[in-house]
């Protein structure tokens, strides 16, 4: 503890594939006792990342995904489906529940706290809002959130659309469970690109670290030195195989993978 504040390590995860990125975060959550901020700047190749309960056939155009061999990852947190690519920046905050005084480890409490944190980052670049569970400039979403909450720790992660390729959105169906403010808009009318509001990615990521510095004493660390080869830990994060996807097409999703 420094000056009564918790420590947080900040990790630059680089350009990991979706399953490696999510699996590492799950390991940090379940196998370490420290507070972390992980910033992952882009993913190659474009990858679909689904929440813990998402039904693939309802959210993803499976035939197109199979044809173009787009990877599909099921992550360990809740929330919706995104397609992430080189234009996506992931920011994940992993905390002990006592790390932020007075913050109860429940979804809405953590979401509200995050909205205030990111408000400090984005307020000077646009009309920033936490709209239901999304970060938006005015009514257009640029950040989607998901959480995982364990007994003593929680994860809040965000996929930020620094930029996106509209063609990639064609792999996703419009979800049945959508925020009210979406108002049935298609992807291009509902979303916006951060690069149209902010001058550079580094200004964004530096802003995040500065905002966190108001709550934590932040120390940069390398991800590879933190994660040990813990062979006992088996992440629930999973890359769905071609076989998994084909089974879903033929079974009409009576089983969940």
């Amino acid at each position, binding site marked *: 503890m420094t000056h009564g504040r918790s420590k947080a390590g900040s990790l630059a995860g680089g350009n990991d594939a979706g399953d490696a990125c999510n699996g590492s975060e799950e390991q940090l959550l379940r196998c370490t006792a420290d507070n972390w901020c992980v910033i992952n700047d882009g993913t190659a190749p474009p990858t679909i990342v689904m929440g813990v309960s998402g039904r693939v056939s309802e959210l993803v155009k499976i035939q197109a995904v199979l044809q173009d061999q787009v990877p599909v990852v099921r992550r360990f947190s809740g*929330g919706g489906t995104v397609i992430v690519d080189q234009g996506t920046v992931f920011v994940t905050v992993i905390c002990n529940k006592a790390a932020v005084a007075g913050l*109860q480890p429940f*979804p809405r409490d953590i979401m509200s706290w995050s909205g205030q944190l990111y408000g400090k980052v984005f307020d000077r670049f646009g009309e920033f809002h936490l709209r239901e569970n999304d970060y938006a400039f005015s009514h257009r979403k640029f950040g989607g959130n998901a959480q*995982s909450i364990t*007994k003593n720790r929680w994860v809040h992660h965000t996929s930020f659309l620094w930029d996106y390729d509209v063609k990639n959105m064609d792999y996703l169906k419009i979800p049945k469970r959508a925020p009210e403010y979406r108002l049935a808009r298609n992807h291009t009318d509902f979303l916006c690109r951060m690069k149209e509001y902010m001058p550079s990615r580094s200004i964004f990521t530096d802003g995040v670290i500065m905002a966190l510095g108001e709550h934590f004493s932040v120390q940069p660390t390398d991800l590879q030195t933190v994660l040990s080869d813990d062979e006992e830990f088996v992440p629930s994060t999973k890359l769905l195989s071609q076989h998994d996807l084909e089974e879903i097409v033929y079974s009409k999703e009576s089983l969940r993978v």
Partner: protein
Amino acid sequence: MAMAASSRLLWASRAAAYLRISTFPRAFSTVLKDLKYADTHEWVKVEGDSATVGITDHAQDHLGDVVYVELPEVGVSVSQGKNFGAVESVKAASDINSPVSGEVVEVNEKLSEEPGLVNASPYEKGWIIKVKLSDSGELNSLMDDGKYSKFCEEEDNH
């Protein structure tokens, strides 16, 4: 007016006692007598060496609308304080931790189609697993209804 108010309060207390519900002046969530509670907001109802487990009214209220419940398989072991499943609400997957140790003998399959039962009826239709207890002594480390109500109040006022 004071006499009428105190009579109503007396009637309410007697009705609550009959229905085995605790009433506390500032209780916003329901807490049932005859159950035991973990500090991670799960409840357990013990009948002999069999226990039924779910999440409390306080928990479901704070979690929001539950859209998915991840259930364990029948036959797996659960340990006191360790997670055995999860609920998804809003954008969060939240662990459910077992208040007791033992073997899962039944899971509430209805929750697959109707996860909202956890919100609508957290102590009855929203039960999650039934466990054959391996160590009933563990129950002594859990809270009774009075302690749990106070615990929730302190958490909410923190």
